[in-house]
């Protein structure tokens, strides 16, 4: 398939759908990186300033990161 064919294919329903799927997968992968960075940031924040909520924040950040990974996996398997 040439580049011209690929661009023209974007304007077909299947092409548009594939393009959207690739877009959302790309955004989800970037989001996983954000969620990972957030877990590291929470760890640093907790070390700098410790309260009785520190464990809860770390738990939420980790769950958030795991869900972000799960969403990418589900998207890869189903889309």
């Amino acid at each position, binding site marked *: 398939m040439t580049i011209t064919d690929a661009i023209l294919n974007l304007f077909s*329903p299947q092409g*548009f*759908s594939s393009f*959207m*799927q690739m877009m*959302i997968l790309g*955004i*989800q992968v970037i*989001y996983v990186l*954000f*969620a990972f*960075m*957030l877990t*590291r*940031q*929470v760890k*640093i*924040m907790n*070390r*700098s*300033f*410790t*309260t*009785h*909520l520190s464990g809860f*924040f770390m738990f*939420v*950040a980790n769950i*958030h990161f795991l*869900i*972000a990974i799960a*969403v990418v996996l*589900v*998207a890869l398997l*189903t*889309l």
Partner: protein
Amino acid sequence: MTALSSFIINPSNTLYDGEDHDEKILYVIRRSKITNLSWTLLAAIMLIIPTIADPFLRSLKFNGANLVSLKFLFIFTFSWYLATFGLAFFNFLNWFFNVYIITSKKIIDFDFFGLTYKNIAETTLENVEDVTSTISGPFHTIFNIGDVVIQTAGEKREFDFVEVDDPGRIRDIISDLVAAKRGHHDHN
């Protein structure tokens, strides 16, 4: 809940990195809660958007067939809610951990911005030279929010407590602590 307050006196179960064993945290101060309004509203709007966008995306058809599949719509909607939660959590953490701490020995300013910036500055109470509080603008006047600027003799010349509740009270607290530390004991 006290831990989520923007002005905490003698907080329990609270430590900071570098705290001395003979040091006591007297006050933990954060930006006023009202400064969280913008991202809270944004998160609320983001929560509503799927309920509006979902019927629209379902109605998109090409030659009688749905342009957007239900599987795609489900994953997109779930990702959207996750991103909304991520945005709210990230902004909440930035508010919660950007604190100003006044201890029996020091004033510490914690700055976390974004995911990669961390700056912690501290000065001893003896180094404080001048404390000023400012309230400017109608919004800040209505809610009694303002800045407290602390001039020091240390390497970092200025500490800014930004958009804190009742800045006049905080200025008074710091001035009294500094005076007491210098042995003046003149609290009024």
